[in-house]
């Protein structure tokens, strides 16, 4: 995955993401694509969650999946989650849960709960950084005021780091990404080339359409504008030549 929170020169905040999923879950040799990614694409839906006929939050999700990976609480904050791989991973959290230790929260349920119940950037940041989880994760949070954007790097128990303002893929920002999977450098290069004056949903879509930021695992691209309360999503494909991840 690649997530970006960016601000234009007028202080207008935008949040965009590519959701990449399906690595090593079957490779279709004939079509040169990941089986799981292909099966997920038709399931992508945009959902407007309403209470009393009013929008509470909007999300891009998968039909049948009740947690959230991408969403906007209009006029308050935007949130995306990127996968964080660790030996102390979610399977340990699940084992603990089965054995009766249930003080952690399922990651996607926390994300949905925050989108549904938090009413400000600060409240969302506090919940995402302090709630004990079953699995490690990166939470990318954008606010509605200038300077409000951060990447929260989570282990299952702790908030390891809160990095104000930037772009993240699936690696800790203080470490070099795996040399075979460096989407951060090209994405950063394109963001720098775009310049702050030209930041918009249109230019963020351009960044997320540049290979290898766009790759064979990319299922959808979502663009969010917090002050307009707007979320738009597009199902993606990456024709050859294209990196498998």
């Amino acid at each position, binding site marked *: 995955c690649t997530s970006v929170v960016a601000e234009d020169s007028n202080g207008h905040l935008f949040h965009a993401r590519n959701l990449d999923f399906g690595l090593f*879950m*079957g490779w279709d040799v004939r079509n040169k694509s990941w089986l*799981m990614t292909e*099966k*997920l*694409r*038709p*399931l992508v*839906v*945009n*959902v*407007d*969650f*309403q*209470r009393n006929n009013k929008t509470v939050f909007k999300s*891009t999700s*998968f*039909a*049948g*999946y*009740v*947690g959230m*990976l991408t969403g906007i609480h209009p006029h308050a904050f935007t949130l995306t989650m990127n*996968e*964080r*791989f*660790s030996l102390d*991973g*979610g399977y340990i*959290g*699940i084992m603990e*849960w*089965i054995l009766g230790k249930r003080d952690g929260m*399922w*990651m996607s*349920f926390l994300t*949905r709960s925050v989108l*549904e119940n938090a009413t400000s950037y600060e409240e969302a940041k506090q919940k995402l950084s302090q709630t004990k989880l079953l*699995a490690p994760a990166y939470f990318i949070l954008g606010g509605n005021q200038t300077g409000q954007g951060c990447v929260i790097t989570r282990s299952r128990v702790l908030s390891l780091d809160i990095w104000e303002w930037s772009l993240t893929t699936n690696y800790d920002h203080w470490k070099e990404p795996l040399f*075979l999977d*460096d989407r951060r450098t*090209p994405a950063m290069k*394109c963001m720098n080339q*775009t310049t702050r004056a030209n930041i918009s949903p249109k230019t963020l*879509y*351009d960044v997320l*359409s*540049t*290979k*290898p930021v*766009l790759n064979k695992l990319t299922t*959808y691209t979502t663009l969010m504008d917090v002050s307009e309360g707007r979320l738009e999503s*597009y*199902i*993606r*494909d*990456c*024709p050859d*030549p294209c*990196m498998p991840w």
Partner: protein
Amino acid sequence: RPQFVPPYTEECRSGMYPPKGPTFKGAVTWYTVNLDLPPAKRWTDVMSDKKDDVSVSSRGKNLANAFVPSGKLLDIVDRDLPLLLDTLPFPFNEEIRGISAASGVPLGEVLLFNIFYEVFTA
């Protein structure tokens, strides 16, 4: 040219929006989920619309069979995983139950689909 050798890094793209061309496979459909409804009923419309096009079941099976091709893992998913459902927090457990009922997909497979993130972070 660098875009023809791995990792196929391109010059930064421009003019891609509005989405079109070979990297765009379609717009995403909007649905409304009414949070005033009982949790088991909230996803009925979405699942009614999607169940004929795409089987969530095949996704669960692929997921399980990718790791244990014999199908034994899927047996466990169908037989034992639903026991976990009642331990999940409300309203998510009820929503998952509703999705299974609306789609006809076994409960264990819907549950596996909903916890795949936790399973695959190793």
